[in-house]
């Protein structure tokens, strides 16, 4: 498995460069917005990747609550952390796109506000994981993750339920898209999904190693209470 990581890393880097080329050069220019519409090829795949990671976090959290499996707890933590990174990209690229198109950086409409709330829920999840040392922290965090996951479909379908400034969803919504744009969008989504998978994998290995080291520190302090233990 360790040998596969650099190979997958190189393949993902090539795919990301290819996806960038597709987004900047191959994709047709949108008539009304012009080149600024190409932000779409980073904004939407980042949102989809974040949603998938939050659903993985939900599945792993439910598994942890049922089985108390430490590996599920690590998967939940890692997917939430990487999901927050992708959601941050969405929340920053969105206003950068909105400014030249809508004339404003931000508006408190349902899609934008619910995305911000979703981001805050997962940031609070990570703060809980980071700063609480109680033995019940993983279980409490898993319960919070279940709440967070309930917000994901609400964010996605909020455009249907409320009048918002945001356009209709590309998939499963009332919006339509040029097939060439859809092709480029899917390539970018694939590239970002592969990238997210690799980041999650390396973060999983790091978290597993961290827990082993913490365990070794605890054992060392039991065997040698006068020793220097951090």
């Amino acid at each position: 498995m360790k040998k596969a990581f650099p190979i997958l890393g190189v393949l993902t880097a090539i795919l990301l460069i290819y996806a960038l080329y597709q987004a900047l050069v191959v994709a047709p220019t949108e008539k009304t917005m012009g080149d600024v519409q190409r932000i779409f090829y980073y904004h939407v795949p980042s949102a989809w990747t974040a949603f998938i990671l939050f659903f993985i976090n939900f599945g792993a959290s439910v598994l942890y609550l049922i089985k108390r499996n430490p590996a599920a707890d690590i998967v939940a933590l890692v997917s939430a952390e990487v999901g927050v990174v992708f959601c941050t990209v969405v929340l920053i690229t969105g206003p950068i796109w909105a400014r030249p198109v809508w004339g404003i950086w931000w508006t408190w409409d349902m899609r934008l506000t619910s995305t911000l709330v979703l981001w805050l829920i997962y940031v609070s999840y990570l703060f809980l994981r980071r700063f609480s040392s109680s033995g019940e922290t993983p279980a409490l965090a898993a319960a919070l993750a279940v709440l967070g996951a309930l917000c994901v479909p609400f964010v996605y379908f909020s455009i249907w339920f409320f009048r918002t400034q945001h356009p209709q969803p590309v998939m499963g919504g009332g919006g339509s898209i040029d097939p060439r744009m859809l092709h480029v969008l899917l390539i970018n989504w694939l590239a970002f999904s592969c990238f997210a998978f690799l980041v999650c994998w390396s973060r999983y290995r790091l978290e597993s190693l961290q827990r082993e080291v913490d365990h070794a520190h605890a054992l060392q302090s039991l065997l040698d209470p006068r020793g220097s233990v951090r």
Partner: protein
Amino acid sequence: MNKTYYLLAAYAVTWIIHIAYLGTIVRRYQRLQGEIKDLKKPGPRS
């Protein structure tokens, strides 16, 4: 402001965020390697 600047800004910010996050992972990994090295050192025993 030219609209292309917004496009460049969005793409640049995306990669700055991802690279910064990867940087934190590498830094945490290096710190952990240091801790492992310390754990392997023979400590004082009574």
